């Protein structure tokens, strides 16, 4: 097999998978532009890796694996650099309709921040697994993408969900206490 892509074949793969891959990345990252950037990087890596990656029809799994990893890495990097999610103002989260009040929108954004906090804290493979499953990949597809045996996917998924749930609940408890603490301090 040649180690270079035939342009038409690469374009077909790009067009077939782009939308799905950028959607997964966009869930993890705050901005459309950043998601598109990371997505382009993922496809550049695919291009560099050559058509061998697509042998055996595994290109979708490769893309999901690389994209989920890259997006989690970018999420963590943003957190380290202190890039805060916008909770107020004209943030990138679309409103759900004209009836959504500013308070509801703010709360919704807070929930998004919580979920991303949890994803960033999980071990990368666990976060990848959850994102893939949530994107609708079957156990077989997940196994191919993460190079696991199909029979181990259920167990790993159960563990990842247990860890996510524990972190998520803790995060929610912490956030629900924060306003009470603030109010208590202000009352003193």
């Amino acid at each position, binding site marked *: 097999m040649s180690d270079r892509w035939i342009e038409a074949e690469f374009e077909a793969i790009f*067009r077939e998978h782009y939308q799905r891959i950028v959607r997964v990345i966009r869930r993890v990252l705050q901005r459309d532009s950043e998601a598109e950037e990371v997505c382009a990087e993922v496809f*550049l890596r695919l291009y560099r890796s050559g058509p061998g990656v697509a042998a055996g029809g595994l290109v979708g799994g490769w893309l999901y694996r690389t994209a989920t990893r890259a997006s989690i890495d970018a999420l963590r*990097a943003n957190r380290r650099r*202190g890039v805060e999610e916008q909770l107020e103002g004209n943030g990138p989260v679309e409103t759900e309709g004209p009836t959504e009040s500013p308070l509801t929108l703010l709360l919704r954004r807070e*929930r998004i921040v919580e979920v991303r906090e949890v994803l960033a804290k999980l071990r990368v493979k666990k976060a990848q697994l959850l994102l893939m499953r*949530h994107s609708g990949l079957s*156990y077989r597809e997940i196994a191919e993408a993460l190079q696991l045996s199909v029979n181990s996917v259920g167990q790993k998924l*159960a*563990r990842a969900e247990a860890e996510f749930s524990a972190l*998520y609940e803790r995060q929610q408890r912490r956030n629900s206490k924060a306003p009470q603490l603030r109010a208590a301090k202000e009352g003193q």
Partner: protein
Amino acid sequence: MKHEEVNQGVLRAYLDGELDSTRLFAVEQHLQGCSVCSGEVAILRNRAALVRDGLDRLPKLPDADTSARAWSAFQKKREEWMDGDQNRWTLWQKLSLAGGCLGVAAVALVLTVAPVRAWAENLLAIFRVERFTILEINPATLKNEGLQNNQLLNQTIGRVLSDEITVTQSPQKPQLMANAATASKIAGFPVQLLLGQTPSSLLLESGIGMNMKLDGDRIQSILDEAGRSDLRIPASVDGAVIGVRVPAGVMAFYGNCGDVASRMMAQAGAGPGTKNPSASADHHVVVHLGGADKSVSEAGVENQAMHANKVSPGETSGQEADATCVSLFEIPSPIVSAPQEIDPAQIAQVALQFLGMSANDAANFTQTVDWTSTLVLPVVRGESKYEQVHVNGNEGALLRGANQNQSGHFSLMWVDNGIVFALNGTGDDTTAINLASQLQ
């Protein structure tokens, strides 16, 4: 189905409808009579719902298909990136990249540490450079896969590792020293200079210290994204803390080296992010690569020297160095510490295969090296010449570029009494060895 067979994984797959009909039937039968497993199913179902509820909150892109626009943008980006890549991909960058990858992929990969001498209380083994060994790399390997892709791979390495590093001693900008006595006092070792010659510049490079917690999964991702998923990082690496301490070193320039000293002083050293690794991941990794380079020294010691002698064709500058320029870098051996569980030979084999060796060759080569004291210098076959030489009674390595533009430049490296030396200049082999013999 027996109770022992109905584990959490089976129950989770049951909830997702991922069991084949036979197992599905067996699990359903079992659940009817087993309250423990039924309870477990309820817990798993609740957790799955909680995760779904959480992930459902994340924003979705509108349904519109943007792939046509994205394809145009991608083509443009790819073009820019490939143009840049061609310009960037030089011999010394390959070396540096190889060194950087090796150093970073698990500091221990090339600097590797063997559990020979116990350190402090219970856990650390020590690596010090006592000798060099040359390792030829097949250029075909470098031209394939992810290794060539230095930009993307370095970004990956940056992202992957920047979480895991704590700088214990930040690098500072190089300082001009008045003379060898002052340099020796500040650097903490007796600095040697060429007999009867006064350096045009004498710079002190600060030490660097860092600890890195290795994450097996994340290091594996570097291999994966370099297209080498066939290589697996040993399990012992996961969670290990590697310490790297690079002492202060001294760089002496002789002859006309242009403005390289002032450029080094302007460019190198710590930025605002280095004291707090979490503050600036990208910058931090640059620091780390620098540290790894310096300690690996096939890239570091040499790189600094090449920097001085203008070997790198991609270099741009104001004043050019000429053939009279000689640079000498000297530094006490960097020290790497690692837990005893780390098996250096096993890790080295992965690193060597990453550089293109067959599994068999890697295993054989690994056995020929004392990994506690030998620094392996990767050299790209056909692009550089090298030989093992004797320098002042010590074994050393003499390297040159293979093409005509570079073949006049030499880089001579050796270790004498715990100090690593790199001497760089223009001339034949005898010139190099003679210069080295003038040190005192």
